[in-house]
């Protein structure tokens, strides 16, 4: 059975989804979903160990060897990604039962879990497959379910946000489709490994350039890279809290994974970064993203909006590290990917708890929460510190490596800008802290109780993960380094 782990990883949630329809009873469905996600998590841990121990795992679906059939190809990067996704989803699910009771009508609960599982399966499918077209299919699974999940939000603006996301996402997907088609036309294969061997022959053709361009643009749409980020804030702000926590922690990471996979593995570093001015472009976009988004975040009234914009900024950091295109830079990016998932998961989940009690995440409704919901607010404070990058939190670790990578590459100004960017983070997070601890609660708003345990437990699981991996960084650093090296063709 161990040999089947790669595919089980994906099909367990994939097939669990329809089974939920048969189960029907929301309570059972929740438990079932939790179990499924948990087992997926265990599988991903096992896979990670396997990969670290014995290198790349290949699994031929239908027993047809690639490139004729579809193969799953798992190296350290894939394993890391699926670890992040499954881990976050499991923790978030713990709170789901409580949360959606408030936010989603009763008759939709089962459907909610079905969609949740589908989107989980879709993401896992993307990060494990080694076939370009298969990526597209699973991309659609995850996107479609994501649209539906977002649209379940209570506010009617959720519908509009979801619609915009749908249009943007579909355009992105179609672009990717075009890119894949062009690549196929020039190489006659869809398998990534195979592509990476056959592309160099035709690398100088204009068609391949076009294919590359379309892929990048399409992926960046999904990634919400700075100029293309407009769909993200509303989608995060009006989706149900659980969905926000899950997507914010995972979906953009998946897009980033695709970007890394295609540029580094399929097209190859030399093509991606030397024959095109991609490096400069991405550094500029990344830094612009950091500053514009952070500044926008400062002026947000809705805290979910605020953190959504900060997500865009964090993507900027990752892109900067990515475009340094050294092992160190890539490693910093992967590390930040992992850490940011923890940070944003914790923050958005805590916001969910606030929403559960207060019924709003508007900044003015945070007044006095410091006393009323001490544990939740403490979680938000720790999360914010981690976001800023204070020592003993994960945020510091990734920032350290990011700056180090920039300095090693001789990009002093970039290093300075990265650090300046985190100052903006201080500003926007501290607005929340001050609102919660220094403002008296508004008149006419009754006292609220501390969030229920079903919320506090997962929130603090994530928060303590923030601290733990900030203090004991071996795992994260080790894996990220291994993954980065493997992408540069050194080591496993």
């Amino acid at each position: 059975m161990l040999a089947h782990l790669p595919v089980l990883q994906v099909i367990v949630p994939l097939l669990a989804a329809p089974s939920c329809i048969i189960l029907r009873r929301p309570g059972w469905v929740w438990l079932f979903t939790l179990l499924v996600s948990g087992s997926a998590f265990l599988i991903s841990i096992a896979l990670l160990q396997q990969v670290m121990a014995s290198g790349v795992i290949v699994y031929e679906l239908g027993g047809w060897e690639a490139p004729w059939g579809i193969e799953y190809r798992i190296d350290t990067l894939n394993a890391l990604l699926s670890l992040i996704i499954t881990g976050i989803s499991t923790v978030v699910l713990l709170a789901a039962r409580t949360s959606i009771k408030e936010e989603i009508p009763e008759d939709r609960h089962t459907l909610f879990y079905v969609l949740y599982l589908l989107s989980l399966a879709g993401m896992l499918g993307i990060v494990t497959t080694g076939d370009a077209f298969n990526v597209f299919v699973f991309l659609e699974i995850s996107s479609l379910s994501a649209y539906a999940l977002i649209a379940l939000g209570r506010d009617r603006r959720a519908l509009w946000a979801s619609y915009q996301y749908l249009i943007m996402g579909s355009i992105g997907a179609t672009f990717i489709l075009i890119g894949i088609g062009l690549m196929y036309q020039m190489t006659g294969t869809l398998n990534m490994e195979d592509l990476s061997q056959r592309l160099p022959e035709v690398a100088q053709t204009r068609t391949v350039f076009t294919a590359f361009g379309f892929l990048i643009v399409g992926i960046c749409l999904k990634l919400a890279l700075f100029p293309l980020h407009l769909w993200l804030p509303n989608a995060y702000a009006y989706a149900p809290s659980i969905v926000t926590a899950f997507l914010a922690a995972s979906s953009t990471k998946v897009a980033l994974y695709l970007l890394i996979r295609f540029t580094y593995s399929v097209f190859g570093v030399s093509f991606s970064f030397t024959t095109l001015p991609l490096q400069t472009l991405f550094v500029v976009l990344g830094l612009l993203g950091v500053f514009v988004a952070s500044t926008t975040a400062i002026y947000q009234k809705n805290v979910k909006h605020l953190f959504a914009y900060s997500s865009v900024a964090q993507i900027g950091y990752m892109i900067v590290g990515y475009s340094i295109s050294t092992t160190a830079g890539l490693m910093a990016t992967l590390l930040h990917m992992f850490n940011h998932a923890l940070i944003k998961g914790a923050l958005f989940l805590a916001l969910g708890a606030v929403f559960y009690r207060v019924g709003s995440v508007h900044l003015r409704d945070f007044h006095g929460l410091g006393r009323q919901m001490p544990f939740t607010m403490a979680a938000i404070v720790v999360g914010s510190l981690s976001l800023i990058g204070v020592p003993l939190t994960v945020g510091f670790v990734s920032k350290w490596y990011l700056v180090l990578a920039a300095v090693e590459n001789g990009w002093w100004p970039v290093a300075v800008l990265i650090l300046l960017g985190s100052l903006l983070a201080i500003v926007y997070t501290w607005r929340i802290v001050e609102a919660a601890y220094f403002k008296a609660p508004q008149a006419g708003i009754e006292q609220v109780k501390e969030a229920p345990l079903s919320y506090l437990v997962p929130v603090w699981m994530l928060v303590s993960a923030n601290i733990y991996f900030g203090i004991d960084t071996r795992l994260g650093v080790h894996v990220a380094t291994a993954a980065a090296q493997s992408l540069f063709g050194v080591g496993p």
Partner: protein
Amino acid sequence: MFLGLYNYWIMVVLMMIGFYIVIAHGNLVKKIVGLTIFQTSVFIFYISISNIDGGTAPILAEGISRYSNPLPHVLILTAIVVGIATTALGLALAMRIKEAYGSIEEEEIQQRDNREC
């Protein structure tokens, strides 16, 4: 050479028409229509990749040696399904928006939201 490429160009034009409708038009249903046109054109592009002069439909039969490339067909079968799925979801959203906002024009929806905030 142009003879060899012209119908690619036609497809490009078709795609761009669809693409234009998607991003330029304010009406939600029209956007979806644009999207379908965009995607369908991409499908045509794929299929024309697969075509071979003198080839026949890829269904094995006696005395035929030249078949057009089946792989893109398969891909497009999948892609069409994805397309209809997206369309259905998009339209459903449009309906809900109509219910919630009483309109499916981008500007009006934006205005209503701004008034809320």
